[in-house]
């Protein structure tokens, strides 16, 4: 890994569903997103995933935090999305050794679009 450089990538995305999703559906969507993104990174070249994590904040101290550290292990989740949520803004940090900032940006964006399509949702990056 000493030969693999770390070029952190971060973004904010607005996710909009065609209808309010149940809290567990939002959790499943973002779990799927990070799992797919971790796999996409590994498939993209020699790399070591440090940490890929996303956070969405809501009123009343509610939040959803999803995190993945390897393509071989499922993401972990803390918090939950409030009921009746159709749109949310997430902050995403992608810390992967061995892939460039630009490559991580491409993978993050492309994977988001794929996952959004499967959930009949849209995603817009800042």
């Amino acid at each position, binding site marked *: *890994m000493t030969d693999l450089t770390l070029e952190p990538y971060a973004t904010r995305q607005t996710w909009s569903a065609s209808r309010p999703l149940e809290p567990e559906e939002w959790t499943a969507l973002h779990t799927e997103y990070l799992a797919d993104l971790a796999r996409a990174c590994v498939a993209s070249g020699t790399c070591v995933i440090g940490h890929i*994590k996303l956070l969405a904040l809501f009123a009343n101290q509610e939040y959803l935090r999803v995190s993945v550290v390897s393509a071989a292990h499922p993401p972990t989740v803390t918090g939950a999305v409030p009921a009746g949520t159709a749109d949310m803004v997430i902050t995403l940090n992608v810390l992967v050794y061995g892939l460039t900032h630009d490559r991580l940006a491409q993978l993050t964006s492309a994977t988001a679009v794929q996952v959004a399509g499967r959930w009949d949702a849209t995603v817009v990056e800042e």
Partner: protein
Amino acid sequence: MRLLLVTGFLGSGKTTLILSLARAARQAGVRTAIVVNEIGEIGIDNQLMRQLDLNVWELFNGCICCTLTADLVTTLQNLDADYTVDLVIVEPSGAADPKNLLNALPYYRGRPLASIRWVTVLDPLRLPMLLEVLEPLITAGIRQADFLIVSKTDLATAEERAAATAAARAISPDTPLYCLSLGGELPAELVAELLA
């Protein structure tokens, strides 16, 4: 003012541990500040801590083990000058070499720190791999620690837990070691040690 360093590689479970500690500190009436140094273009952990009404100080755009050591020292001095904090928890970036933090502390000019304790969090899912590819960094973190925590035990297999514990023990046989599940209750004796 006491100082607690919580180190570990990216994604090892540092923030989860700190959130649990902060809750315990609040219940115990320990006035706590958290200094977070995140790597990346946008900080996430500090946003979450603020959402939970914790007293968070963010050090950004660099690493407190090298380019931001002066900022860390200044932050500690400011916290000391406020006289309102009993415990400062420092979370360096998981990509940092934490032993360099100790080189920064002699430049601190506040009142003497009552104690400096070091906790290293280890991820049993990846520890063998990390010891292969990042051996000096991971080994240093284990050697320096006053307490070792093997996290995510509910996510790891029995073999992964045993391998992680054995690897830590091989490097630091006598350091107190705790195994914690993700988001599980902290053992009372560990809380007492870390908040004392």
